[in-house]
């Protein structure tokens, strides 16, 4: 499956200044693993040492929060979009 992972600008600089990355895999987690293999610096910003999601970075598969659809195990289909939503506090 080929999908697009959308990164916020704050993380894009760790991915060659690219906001949208093509990725492959059968689940959201596999797609992230694919992206992290190419841009290792992204790894610790997207998931913890055990490969689990953080509580301060939320992932969307299209417009749905993956936590309610199996988390990193959520299945993906061709053309899907994964949107990384990091917490920010500026005001």
């Amino acid at each position, binding site marked *: 499956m080929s999908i697009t992972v959308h990164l916020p600008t704050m993380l894009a600089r760790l991915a060659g200044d690219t906001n949208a990355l093509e990725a492959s895999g059968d689940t959201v987690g596999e797609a992230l693993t694919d992206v992290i293999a190419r841009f290792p610096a992204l790894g610790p910003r997207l998931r913890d040492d055990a490969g689990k999601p953080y509580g301060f970075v939320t992932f969307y598969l299209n417009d749905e929060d993956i*936590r309610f659809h199996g988390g990193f195990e959520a299945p993906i289909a061709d053309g899907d979009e994964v*949107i990384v939503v990091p917490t*920010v506090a500026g*005001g």
Partner: protein
Amino acid sequence: MTATETTSVDHTHRLAELPELSTEELQRYSRHLLLPEVGLEGQRRLKAGRVLLVGAGGLGSPLGLYLAAAGVGHVGLVDFDVVDVTNLQRQVLHGTRDVGRSKLDSARDRLLDINPHVDLETYDTRLTSDNALEIVREYDVVVDGTDNFPTRYLVNDACVLTGRPNVYGSIFRFEGQASVFATADGPCYRCLFREPPPPGLVPSCAEGGVLGVLPGLIGTIQATETLKILLGIGTTLAGRLLLVDALRMQFRTLKLQRDPACPACGTRTLRELIDYEDFCGLRAVHSGPGVPEVTPAELVAWRARGDAIDLVDVREPGEWALGHLSGARHVPLGTVSSALGTFARDRTTVLYCKGGTRSAQAARILQDDGFTNVWSLTGGILRWRTEVDPTLPNY
């Protein structure tokens, strides 16, 4: 607190109970009165409305200006800061002549100039677990214009516990987020972000910068949502998260749902306000267990006696470019782990950042790798500027 209070935005007010508008007000609000969705009744609802703005900074500026201009009758403003020249690039509530004044005094002058009909209540304090519920209960709607994680979780929890909608906005660099949390059936901030990031991982606008107009974009979205809530019209962002990317000028809306496991609005195990500094891990950083600190005066003495010191600036590149300590080299916090080979174990390493938080984190990374002679500069470059080198810029 044993039960969540119900929201105080009551749209069942009988018309006769709403405040009257004077002839001057009827003229002032004529463009609202022409809107069928607002009209005379809506404008009277706005006059009856009570909105608490937490923060009179980047987001609070457009919020205050537009809510006052729109005729919201009662506006509360919480802030304890003083206008700084670095605020003026985005905090349009304040002007050059206000530098050095309290933000509340500056805001009062500007807002009452825009609309003298506004009843403005100012709270010259930090919002805390001790005062938040009491203050929040005085209002119908709370708008989060704060700039730090502890206060954001505090605002959220206070809103959930008191049943007040939390009109959320948050910004960083070129991107922003907005939503409406803590409505009767909707999700809250904790449903979106279960926990805060560890201190220092996510830079603040003071560290990472922010496009000046961005709080204008997000703050006006928050103001729009606030007015809709008071008027009871339209569809708010409750249950949706708006992402704004100003660099690409892309707006994206994602679905938000209440997390059944959310301690605030799901399981409701959170029955009172907590210690939010502790929740955000800031106590541990402030007390800095295990990370030795060196004051600016001590570092000056070390350098004067010729100690071999590896002085390392762990701030972001933009901060480094603004100015740095002489003799320092630059290793941003995010790259310390991969740059361990550049540090010498037999030398004294002194790390510094803006205020001391990130340098303590960097020191801990080195300590974890077995470095023993590692120090964090107390108070960072800002304290160095005050005590040693006033030619460095304040930022």
